[in-house]
Each structure stands twice: as C-alpha cells, then as structure tokens.
C-alpha cells in the first residue's frame, strides 16, 4: 500500500508557542488512521495544517505524491481533502439536503453557469445527497434547516458533507465528542463503509474504545511531537504514550 499523505518535519509556532514541532508521519492509502494525544498536544493544529487553514512554519506536506505545502485550503479540498470540525460547522440556514449538495464539487456553481440549464443536474445531485442522508437515517430531516437538527445529527451531516466533497482523504476532528452510544455505532459503520468505498480516513479522537476498535494504525502526539505510531495493541502498552497521558510517576 502506498501513502496518500506524507508529513515531513512540520512545525507551527504561534509567537513563542510551539503548537506542532518537527512532526512527521504518513497515512496509508485506504486506511483508517487515528491521531490521538492528550489535550493541547497539537492534534487540531495538525488538522488545520493539513487542510490548509494554517500555514506551516517549516516542513512539507505531500498529498497523493504532490507537494501541497503552499496550496491554499480550497485548492487542497479540490485535490480530494475534506474535513469535519471539532466545533460543528454546518451551514445553519440551509436545509440538510442543501448542506450536502453544495459540497459536491461539480454542482455548476460558477457565475456564468447560472445561465446554463442547471435544474436537472441539481435534481440529480439532490438524489445523490438524499442517498447519503438515507445511510444514516436522516432522510426525513432532509428539508429541515440545519440549525433545527440535534447536535448528533449535525455531526453526522458534517461527516456526510465531507464525504460528498469527493474526498479521497477525510479528516474527522472528534466525530464522537458529545454523542450518544447508538449514534457512535452509526458513525463507526459509516466510517467502515467509507473505507470500503475507497476513502482514506484520519481521525482525531479522545474516545479510546472507539478509536482502538476502528483504527488500523494509531499515531500519538504529545506537546507538538509525534511520539509513537503503531497498531492499537502496541500503542496501549507503549511506555511513552502512557507517560504522556498519565504522567511519569504513574506509568
């Protein structure tokens, strides 16, 4: 298997704070990879660096064998990189259906395409979006405004939106935070299905049972460094990881 994402020696400093420091890891194509670490380890900063919302101070990011270090966020998204957010960012005033339709890359959204026949194409995309909503049983909520959905439903919607954006690599930032166990199961099946369809998934998570069950590889970050990488079993007994979470004396 080849690597879809390669991160080499990346650093990000905010003034004097080294949020991410000399971090290097890679994500295998078509894998489910977890990124864990204690609070403040730099996981979300890492996601922002990968998706292009932040510019790295040094280091390089390769995506699908192309150097994307200097790409802006929207260009990276068009190359096939999508993400969800820790604090939900659905479009509250649009219907659940539209939230997904706008994410399709080919929805004739150019200014001059407004003067071409777009309605049939839109209807086709709406059908596609509806199928995605059916995956998680949200089809009845399709025409509700996104702000009317519950927290968990918004989270599902955001994951579907990332998938709709024809993403090869999907970054999920804490998909299970604040969500009930039934929905977590739904999310697990959803992620497994994405993998079967050929997507690669990188997850930041604090929910250990969830991530240990789901991921093939886990990368552990602490204070801006990546301190360990390996199979869930190995990670659970890794001394450095235990130290990072529990402190030296307890490990």
């Amino acid at each position, binding site marked *: 298997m080849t690597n879809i994402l390669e991160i080499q020696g990346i650093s990000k400093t905010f003034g004097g704070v080294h949020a991410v420091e000399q971090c290097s890891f890679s994500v295998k194509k078509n894998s489910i990879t977890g990124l864990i670490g204690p609070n403040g380890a730099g996981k979300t900063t890492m996601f922002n660096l990968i*998706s*292009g*919302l932040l510019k790295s101070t040094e280091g390089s990011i390769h995506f699908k064998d192309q150097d994307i270090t200097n790409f*802006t*966020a*929207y*260009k*990276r*998204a*068009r190359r096939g*990189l*999508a*993400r969800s*957010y820790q604090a939900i*960012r*659905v*479009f*509250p*005033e*649009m219907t659940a259906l*539209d939230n997904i*339709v*706008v*994410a399709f*890359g080919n*929805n*004739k*959204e*150019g*200014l001059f*395409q*407004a*003067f071409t026949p*777009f309605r049939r194409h*839109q209807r086709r995309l709406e059908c596609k979006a509806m199928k995605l909503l059916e995956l998680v049983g949200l089809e009845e909520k399709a025409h509700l405004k996104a702000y009317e959905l519950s927290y968990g439903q918004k989270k599902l919607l955001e994951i579907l*939106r990332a998938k709709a*954006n024809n993403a090869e690599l999907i970054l999920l930032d804490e998909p299970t935070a604040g969500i009930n166990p039934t929905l977590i199961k739904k999310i697990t099946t959803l992620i497994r299905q994405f993998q079967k369809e050929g997507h690669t998934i990188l997850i930041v998570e604090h929910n250990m049972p969830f991530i240990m069950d789901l991921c093939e590889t886990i990368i552990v970050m602490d204070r801006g460094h990546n301190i360990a990488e390996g199979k869930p079993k190995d990670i659970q007994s890794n001394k450095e990881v235990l130290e990072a979470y529990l402190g030296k004396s307890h490990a």
Partner: protein
Amino acid sequence: MDYILFIATLVAIYSILTITMNILVGYIGILYLAHPAVYGVGAYTFAILAKGGTNYFLALLAAGAVATILGLIIAMPTLKLKSHYIGMSTLGFLIICHGLFINLKGITRGALGIPGIPRPTIFGETLNTNLSFFIFTIIITTVIGIILHRILHSPFSKTMEIIREDETAAKTLGKNIIKYKLQAFMITSFFGGIGGGLLASLLGYISPTNFNIDELVLILTMVIIGGMASFWGSIVGATIIILIPEALKFLDIAPALIGPLRYGIYGMLIILFMIYKPNGILGRRTNVFSK
C-alpha cells in the same frame, strides 16, 4: 397620474439598487456600505457621457463598467478584512467618493451638480413624458431583474450563501472565496452603476447630495425591511420606503417637517424591524450584523 408614474419609475430603479446591495450584504454577507458611491459613479459617468452626446445605451453600459472598476477597488481591502471592519472601510470609501463628487469640480461641477441629463431617444422619439420613460425603465429593469433573479436562484447563489454562513467551512469544501467575493462585487457594482445611470436620467439633475450617507441609510433600510438575501424582499422594501415620504405629503404636515420626519421614520423602522422581525418581510435569518 404623471406623478404616480414618476414614483413607479423611482420604485423600479430603487429596486435594482436594493437588490444589488442585497447581493453583497444579504447573500455573500459582506457589510458593504459604499453602494451610493458606486451607483453615484455610475450616475455621473452616465450624465457626463449622455450629455456629451454618447449613445444612451452605450452611456448606460459605460456607467456599469466604470462603477465595476470602483466596485473592484472597494473590494480589495474587504478581502482581507472581517465583519465590522469591512463596514468601516466601505463607509470610508463612501465618504471619500462623496468628497470627490464635491471637489472634482472640473468633472462633476461640484455642489452645483449636473443639470439637463437627457432622456433616451428611440426611433427618433425622445421619451420625455413620464409614461414613455416609465415603460422604458420597466423594460430595462425587468431585463436586469430577470438576469439577477436567475443568478440569485442558481447554485452560484447557494455558494455565496455558504460563504456568508461559514467562510472557513466553505473554504475547506473547495470554494474559492476570493473569486466569489470579487464576482459578487462585480455584479453589484455593474448593475448598480446602470441603476445609477437610470436614476440620473429620471431625475434629470444630479448633485453630490444624491449620493451621501443619507442615501445609504435609505437603501440599507430598504434591504433590511425587505429582508436579507431575498430578491422579492428587496423589491417590497424599495416600494415601501419610496412610498412612505410620498404618503406623508398627503398628510397635513408642514413641508419643512417632512424631510427630518422621513429619516426619523426610517430610523424607527430599522429599530423596530431589528427587534421584532430581524429577517425583514421576506428575508432569511443571517449573521451579517452580528458576526
């Protein structure tokens, strides 16, 4: 009757001005407060060219083009700014342009204004009556209205709206925010400029007072009352706000009081709508003023 036609023409033109402002404020969520400067430049361009003997329609298109250039200049700093700072910078542009209208006496004749702006001539017939000019304006504004309606009900406008809702999320969905914002500015200023040209042609006389902050209050009231991000709302808003001072004329109020009373009513309407119906009559809930 003649007077009603004049008011109806005014409503048609202000509808275009309101919709175009709504594109930036309501749809894409940029707190853009320089609209009178943009359509003012259109009006001046049209007035000078049409008086100089340029073809009426060419002069209108030139008004749109020159307004577009100003629109793009105004857009530059807003691309780097956020929320209320955009309001400050665009308001600054409005004040600068108003100052230029007053002081570039060689071009605009300063505070004296430009009189005698011609009405169009079609098939050798000059449309000097209010009826003929009303029909002419309705045709042009309807064409512009159809174009704008098409744009504002297309996937393009949906993308504009997600940029208003959440710029960061839109970015990571592969939307080129800068391109969309520049295009929105171009639509607004081009059609706004044409609207300004029509306004100049209707009034026959323009001076800097036609394009000052009072005018901004007027248009902003139309946008807010009609409703953010709403095509038909803008038309409703423009109609109501144009009709209010006209209705006042029929009441038994001293003429000297009508002017100040008008602005009092606009202010009160904005406050009442903000409290009781922040979406406007037909509009959508937006975060433009709160973010």
